[in-house]
């Protein structure tokens, strides 16, 4: 149940996948909204604190996810051409890469002058021991661009899943939702 099998995703993999999806979409919306907030707004401090706390928690979760992927390998890919498998593997790899890129660049904004980041007020993630000049500005540009690319790729990923489910009527989405396989 918890672990993946040859044909099914286990509970933990599904949970990690869907929590990530929820976090990424939520963080994207929160990030867009909070960057336009006025100094007087009640959420001016709270929204970035929340954004950073969720983002760093997601980073931790993603590390767990990578480890879990090693311990409990993915189910066998569904039948498709070799080219399609390579393409899909590349997209999935890119999704992980972008995920790390967005989270790391976000971390580099807030730690741009050597101060750590408080996570929900529970603990602090320290800054790297060195900073570059105008790090927050540069990391900010990178963070924004990568976030948009990630959202674009996630849309493609979701559209592909929906196509598999509704048009090709295969098990791609069913096994990530824990539904009975056809």
């Amino acid at each position, binding site marked *: 149940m918890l672990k993946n099998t040859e044909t099914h995703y286990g509970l933990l993999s599904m949970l990690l996948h869907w929590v990530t999806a929820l976090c990424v979409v939520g963080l994207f919306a929160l990030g867009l909204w909070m960057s336009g907030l006025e*100094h*007087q707004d009640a959420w001016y401090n709270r929204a970035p604190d929340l954004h950073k706390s969720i983002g760093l928690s997601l980073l931790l979760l993603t590390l767990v996810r990578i480890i879990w992927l090693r311990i409990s390998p993915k189910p066998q890919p569904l039948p498709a051409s070799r080219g399609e498998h390579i393409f899909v593997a590349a997209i999935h790899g890119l999704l992980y890469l972008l995920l790390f890129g967005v989270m790391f660049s976000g971390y580099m904004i*807030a*730690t741009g*002058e050597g*101060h750590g980041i408080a996570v929900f007020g529970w603990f602090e993630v320290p800054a790297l021991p060195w900073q570059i000049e*105008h790090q927050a*500005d540069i990391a900010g540009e990178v963070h924004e661009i990568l976030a948009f690319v990630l959202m674009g790729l996630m849309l493609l990923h979701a559209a592909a899943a929906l196509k598999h489910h509704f048009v090709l009527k295969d098990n791609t989405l069913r096994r990530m939702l824990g539904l009975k396989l056809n």
Partner: protein
Amino acid sequence: MALVSPHLSAADYVIDTTGAHAFIQFKIKHLGYSWLLGRFDKFSGSFSYDETNPAAAKVSVKIDPASIDSNHAERDKHLRSKGFLDVDQYPEAAFVSTSFSDQGNGKALLKGNLTLHGVTKEITIDVNHIGAGDDPWGGYRSGFEGHTQLTLKDFGIQSDLGPASQTVELYLSIEGIRQ
């Protein structure tokens, strides 16, 4: 003395930014409850000052507005951005003096044009001559402090930080090494 004075009148100083004996600090009220302090880390300049003829004093300083530092990465990013200093558009700030009027007791009023955020405006700086003399390394140094106040909107800075934060105070501490 007559032999010494020509030497004194050629009193040109370079501001000792290399040794960081010069500071451009600012403070602005946060919500009206406290002061927020910061500084510009990069600037350079020179002045000429002759104690026997202070009215001839001149100052010229160039400031890199992108070097603003309030010890908070995201705030400094914000201060460099469009709503504030817009440093991509206006990468240089400068002060060039126009007059220096001695008020006695080392006090003086320094007038000059400050260019900030692409806007040039005359400002007046209250100056206090702290001291001058030989340094232990074979040079001669002279130092001043200055106070002035700027209204952000006067320099076209549109971001509004609330009614208590319309003006920013500048504190300048400048040490020059005579050339």
